């Protein structure tokens, strides 16, 4: 891309068009990320259980990146959908069937519906009001889950969730072998979908809404509808992440549906980098590995370091770790 300010001879139209179309084509580096995640299975077998939990959060943060990073909706309530997914998957397993894919499906549908219904309320507003409404929805759902003890187990959590072997072949074991591959595969599909969404006309139009709402209205875009659709899609993904948590831990706790979980996901997102799809894959592992290490080392004080890291990120590395990598690369290119 000509960014050096000089006027270049006009590229032929065809070249410009193919260059623009190629912007969202897959790059080899992306495959590398997935190979690394696959290699992790053999390289650090003792980390497989943590690995599957990281994958789940990656998927959740990825869904959050779509609303916050791409559509520019600053929500504090994304855990609502994660929680709805988690409980739906648990209840499906207990009352209907413990077939894992059915659990994912019911969770996705329930979370998507809650997403669209709450989106109808929330997306009428912006700024502080929107934040408050999203927050309120998490609290309402949390209270509902807490008070409907006979259904959800209340504050004791939903127990007795079982999961049938995946595809009838592999059961979820204590060492997390199956869970690692299962969650990794679902994350891969989620990423693939997010990747396509972001590169599609729809993806560009939600970025357009983020960048310039007034102009989007002026070119006749049905802004409210687009936001509702993207909110519903993202809620569905978050619900699937919640379902995976239920299936891999065979338990649902009230903590699935708290402001704290929304906050954690936002932190992971900004640590990795907002609005770049890979932020989730960097931020979630960093946060969770830090949490794992720091909590062992100092269980009382570890949130202090997380807080400090957050403050420093916002002050000095607004685009997260990936933004830093970009800057270093750009700097080296200039130096070369």
């Amino acid at each position: 891309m000509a960014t050096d300010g000089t006027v270049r001879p006009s590229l032929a139209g065809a070249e410009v068009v193919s260059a623009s179309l190629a912007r969202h084509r897959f790059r080899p580096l992306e495959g590398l990320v997935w190979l690394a995640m696959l290699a992790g299975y053999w390289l650090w077998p003792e980390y497989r259980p943590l690995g599957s939990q990281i994958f789940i959060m990656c998927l959740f943060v990825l869904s959050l990146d779509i609303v916050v990073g791409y559509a520019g909706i600053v929500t504090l309530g994304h855990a609502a959908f994660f929680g709805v997914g988690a409980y739906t998957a648990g209840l499906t397993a207990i009352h209907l069937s413990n077939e894992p894919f059915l659990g994912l499906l019911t969770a996705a549908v329930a979370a998507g519906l809650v997403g669209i219904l709450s989106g109808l309320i929330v997306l009428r507003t912006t700024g502080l009001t929107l934040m408050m409404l999203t927050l309120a929805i998490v609290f309402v759902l949390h209270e509902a889950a807490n008070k409907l003890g006979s259904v959800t187990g209340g504050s004791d959590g939903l127990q007795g969730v079982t999961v049938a072997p995946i595809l009838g072949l592999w059961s979820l074991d204590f060492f997390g072998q199956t869970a690692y591959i299962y969650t990794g595969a679902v994350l891969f599909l989620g990423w693939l979908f997010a990747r396509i969404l972001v590169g599609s006309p729809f993806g560009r139009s939600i970025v357009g809404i983020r960048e310039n709402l007034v102009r989007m209205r002026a070119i006749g875009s049905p802004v409210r509808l687009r936001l509702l659709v993207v909110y519903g899609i993202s809620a569905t993904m978050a619900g699937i992440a919640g379902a995976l948590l239920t299936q891999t831990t065979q338990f649902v706790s009230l903590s699935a549906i708290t402001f704290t979980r929304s906050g954690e996901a936002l932190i992971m997102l900004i640590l990795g980098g907002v609005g770049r799809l890979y932020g989730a894959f960097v931020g979630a592992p960093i946060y969770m590995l830090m949490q794992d290490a720091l909590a062992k080392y100092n269980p009382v004080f570890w949130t202090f370091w997380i807080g400090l890291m957050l403050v420093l990120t916002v002050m000095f590395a607004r685009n997260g770790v990936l933004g830093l990598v970009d800057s270093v690369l750009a700097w080296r290119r200039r130096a070369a």
Partner: protein
Amino acid sequence: MTASASLPPLLETQGLSKSFGALVVADSIDLTLRPGARHALIGPNGAGKTTFVNLVTGTLQPTAGRILMGGEEVTGLSPEARVRKGVGRTFQINSLFNRLSVLENVAIAVSERDGFAGRIFRARKAERRAFEEAYAILEGIGIGMEALRPVAEIAYGRQRLVEIAIALALKPKVLLLDEPAAGIPSAESHVVLDVVEALPPDIAVLIIEHDMALVFRLASRITVLVQGAILVEGTPQEIAHDPKVKEVYLGEKSH
């Protein structure tokens, strides 16, 4: 070119009024644009020119009066619906998608117009066509070479042209240009002028402009707006020799 009086009007406002409390910003404005019209709306600062544009596009709701497009009333329609009826506009201050490339800025409008902007899958062909059309529009106004650059990085004057390109991508029947040359040094304003002169001949253009040289070169009819109301409407010659207009403009020029 003169607008043919025999063709039905593309845009018509009847007694269009808007007030905020006691403040009247549009006072019973009647204006008619026929196919091929090159109509200028001039007037001192605060005369209500941009308000008029906002009323026509639906950003503001009028307190009284009607807006018709092709004889059909659109007064109650949303801004989006009016765009689909054929109203395109540019903004007085650049209003672009700063983090997208010049080409994407235009393609986003093409895809909205063609109705595939909400698509996630199977959009590749439509997308290619949108990019091709967007590029053709950029070529047509002489900024094809900027297509791949982020729009925030190109010169301000060229950003003004992207404003017009986005509006053109909607294939409007009525194009409202809100001070297209604002912010460009007058030595360079001819670039915008050339683009406006080369607009498709069948669309109706309403141009709001301060630069009198520009107005007299482009417009075949001029409406002078003062304090939200029409002072006078006529051909450039009539306006140039109108004593009331002179008074308003001399008053304006002197401070």
